């Protein structure tokens, strides 16, 4: 087979990412009045981690280098932005990135080596519901949403981020069953239960992600356009109902500030106006790393981090970040299309769709394309659970990619074995009763 190792654009891609990380962190390190040694250490550690995970690690663990490189770039941008604003947060994010890489490895091996998913998926269903119920019992309210648990040493923990990993596996397993709606029912009930708990937490952003991903996976697995369309209509009706009922009054506020934030410029529309002003003031090339006023934007480190990127690095760089997400999604869908078994295809499709919806919802909200929903920007926003779960999703994609490589090797072996044994002589004699033997087939009651 033709080797493409030398032709691969990996070296220049990784060099560009390493250079970006090193220059930005060096700039932060030499910022007057004193030399920041911590940033200097990070300027060495982060590019090194990028190089190890993209070039060295795939030699030992089966991984997709393009996915790894793009993930490194996005995580790097997040760490640098956070470090330039609040160094403690940036440092914590870098540590969580290293932890997330470990989780990614686990995800790769999990998908690569586990064959029997049935028992595991049945166990994941009650575990997921239990995890989702935890914040209702012991969680804390955060911006009208009760979806996190505050831990003294660990920090905030968001169970719905971990549950989305399990949900992908459960949905892929049950939707890959080709035996009608009855076999898919546990997955549908599971999604319904998850949505119910998320509504109790008032976490509409996460509920939207779960619902749209499940719907897309259902459509892809069954090809049933009518039910999928009904699902979409149902979602639209639910959104209208949520808009009108008093329990979800903040939905009405979000829609109002989306339509015209200037009405409440110093109230609920303040954050979106500040985000838009930050993007505008950045211009094409940005105000320069560390020179803007990102702290003015509320939730600058989580929901509105894309506005900070545009302010500091400019619109050109912001568009590049969006295009990197597009490339990441294109790679994910390409992996899903190449998978041989429906379980792996659905898993890759689900993980990619989930990341795509999450990215679209948050970036669309920040640039006022759609009403703002409080979810994190994958790989970039500050948040340990989100970063680790997104990296694990990428780990699943790596695992599926590794399976595809193994399947291609099998194909080559089959062709070679075929060439060794027969030369595809299919002049089969219809009168030959060699295969009419009763032993060649068997019927069994299910």
């Amino acid at each position: 087979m033709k080797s493409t190792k030398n032709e691969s654009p990996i070296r220049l891609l990784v060099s560009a990412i390493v250079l970006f990380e090193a220059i930005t962190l060096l700039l932060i390190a030499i910022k007057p009045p004193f030399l920041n040694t911590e940033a200097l250490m990070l300027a060495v550690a982060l590019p090194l981690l990028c190089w190890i995970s993209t070039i060295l690690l795939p030699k030992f663990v089966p991984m997709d280098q393009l996915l790894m490189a793009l993930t490194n770039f996005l995580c790097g941008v997040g760490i640098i932005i956070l470090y330039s604003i609040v160094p403690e947060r940036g440092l914590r994010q870098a540590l969580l990135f290293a932890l997330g890489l470990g989780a990614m490895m686990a995800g790769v091996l999990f998908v690569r080596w586990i064959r029997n998913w049935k028992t595991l998926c049945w166990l994941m269903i009650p575990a997921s519901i239990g995890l989702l119920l935890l914040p209702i019992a012991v969680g804390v309210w955060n911006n009208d949403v009760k979806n996190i648990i505050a831990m003294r040493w660990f920090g905030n923990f968001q169970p719905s981020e971990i549950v989305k990993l399990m949900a992908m596996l459960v949905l892929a397993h049950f939707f890959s069953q080709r035996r009608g709606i009855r076999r898919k029912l546990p997955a549908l009930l599971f999604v319904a239960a998850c949505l119910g708990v998320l509504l109790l937490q008032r976490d509409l952003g996460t509920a939207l992600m779960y619902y749209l991903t499940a719907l897309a996976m259902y459509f892809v697995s069954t090809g049933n356009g009518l039910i999928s369309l009904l699902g979409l209509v149902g979602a639209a009706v639910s959104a209208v109902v949520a808009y009108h009922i008093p329990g979800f009054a903040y939905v009405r506020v979000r829609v109002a500030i989306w339509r015209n934030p200037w009405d409440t410029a110093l109230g609920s529309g303040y954050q979106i106006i500040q985000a838009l002003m930050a993007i505008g003031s950045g211009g094409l090339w940005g105000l320069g790393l560390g020179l803007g006023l990102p702290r003015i934007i509320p939730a600058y480190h989580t929901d509105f981090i894309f506005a900070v990127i545009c302010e500091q690095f400019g619109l050109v760089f912001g568009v590049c970040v969006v295009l990197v997400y597009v490339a990441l999604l294109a790679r994910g869908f390409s992996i899903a299309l190449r998978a041989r078994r429906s379980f792996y295809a659905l898993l890759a499709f689900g993980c990619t769709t989930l990341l795509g919806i999450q990215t679209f919802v948050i970036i669309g909200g920040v640039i006022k394309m759609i009403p703002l929903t409080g979810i994190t920007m994958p790989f970039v926003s500050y948040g340990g659970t989100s970063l680790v779960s997104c990296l694990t999703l990428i780990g699943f994609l790596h695992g599926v990619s590794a399976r595809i490589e193994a399947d291609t090797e099998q194909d080559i072996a089959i062709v070679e074995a075929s060439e060794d044994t027969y030369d595809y002589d299919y002049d089969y004699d219809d009168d030959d009763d060699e295969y009419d033997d009763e032993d060649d087939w068997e019927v069994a009651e299910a």
Partner: protein
Amino acid sequence: MSQEYYELLVLAARYVFALLGVIVVWRATRWLRQDYRQRRWVMSALPDAGYIGTLYVMEGQSKHLSPDDSLPLPTEGLLGCGAGCDVRVLHPTVSRRHAMFEFRTDGLHLRPYRDERLQVDGHPLPQGCEAILNHGAILTLGGVMLQLRLFAGVQAITAFEPEPEPAKGERA
């Protein structure tokens, strides 16, 4: 370094960052295109990649189907005339979704979809039952008679990886 010089340096660095961002996007796009071409090349070198054999049409004539046709057979999927089927048998007597199949180490597992009529080697396959077909087995769907022809090297699959144990009650 004074604050003024530092600000000048940061302002100049903005263009470098934008350039590096463009390079990342450009190389990623090139990688995707190159990978697509390489996949096409591999697929052209392995025309049967992803398939375990063919279903040879012995009987059954329609506008889109004629005897001696060979339908490529993937490792698992649906058999029928519907657009979503993995193996499309375009014949008026074949249902949109007629049967489900899955290749395992012991052969091709075939099961009728709902209550569709199916015969394996001349024996009717009752609803809810599963047949295990090997090379040369003949299946009849409506007015179409098909013969299973597995690739000679398909047995190599079993040498690579053992299939997971089937669920209890799924087959004998």
